[in-house]
């Protein structure tokens, strides 16, 4: 059974999603969700992955937690999980 999750898309990648801020995708792991995204929005997968790994300046969070400290691309997903894609930035108040 595949899970259905909501994926939040950062401004910089919205040209791939016809400017949609959030799209739905299917898969039981993050890797499958990225494949599902790429098949619906051609070229998006390549902006997220490089040589099968997350790109250096891409962070992905499942329910607000960074997947690099969970299972990486194998992080399991369940129905209703929220996936957020964000570029790595220097941020706000320093």
């Amino acid at each position, binding site marked *: 059974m595949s899970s259905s999750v909501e994926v939040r898309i950062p401004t*910089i990648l919205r040209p791939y999603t016809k400017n949609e801020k959030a799209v739905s995708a299917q898969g039981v792991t993050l890797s499958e969700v990225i494949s599902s995204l790429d098949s619906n929005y051609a070229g998006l997968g390549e902006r997220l992955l490089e040589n099968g790994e997350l790109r250096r300046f891409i962070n992905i969070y499942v329910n607000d*937690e960074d997947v690099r*400290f969970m299972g990486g691309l194998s992080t399991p997903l369940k129905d209703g999980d929220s996936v*957020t894609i*964000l570029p790595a930035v*220097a*941020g706000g*108040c*320093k």
Partner: protein
Amino acid sequence: MTRYESLEDSLGHTPLIGLPKLSPKSKPGAPAVRLWAKLEDRNPTGSIKDRTALAMIEAAEKSGQLKAGATILEPTSGNTGISLAMVAKVRGYKLVCVMPENTSIERTQLLKMWGAEIIYSQPAGGSNEAVRLAKEIAAEHPDWVFLYQYGNPANTLAHYNTTGPEIFADLPEITHFVAGLGTTGTLMGAGKYLREKKPDVQIIAAEPRYGEVVYGLRNLEAGFVPELYDASVLTRRFAVGAEDSVRRVRELLNIEGIFAGISTGAILHAALGIAKECVDAGKGADIAFILCDAGWKYLSTGVYDQDGDVEAIEGQLWA
């Protein structure tokens, strides 16, 4: 000892305060889960950045890079600039800050008060753009001293030498340390120290999920990871939305009477999430987190208006 020779000498030794009302109740018979806030607003200029600023300036003086009357350059959207401005004023340096144009009015007022010059960077891209512009200016002014908090090892060392040991001395039973990511100096420095003293301690990063303007990069290759960052120090990392951060800052004020800045709301949200996991697992925990600064500099954003709509202020929150 609460007597010091000068303001600079009073740096650090900030109190670690329990949160008896906000800490969740354990299940009957299970050990306590306690939250502890390290009040970094009790530093000379009111933020944790005093530690970073003084350490970077002292390291640059020691190495001979920083000489009398020199000009210091730094990208900052507030606290580091304010800390550097105070130390620069007292020690006779000039300070030029590169700061995003849309930061709150209080920060410009404070920087000017201590005599700093401000060069504004474009709001789009937030601190990324300030860092990029500062690097450009540094290349044009080789005589200026570019301390660069994101890559200066003195930043990490400040927290390895002071913040970490202070927390461990006050809370040897610590199980989790939660702090903001930012330059990563606090987490890398205090995190490494705590891990050496207690190998099973969890080091947890919380970063705000900024408003869209901060993520407004021209392309993904313009992304940024601070040179100081070493992911192996961290156990987990969270991105906290504006609504959760604002809710927690208001709770801290209403329930414990503590007036904190907005980034502390993101840190507290992550700390409370960890606390709940511990309660659910029936485990005891002593969770220390960093309260970076008080709320004074953010009053004009409207974040402390209890009924204020978060969506309406989101654009200014992390500017």
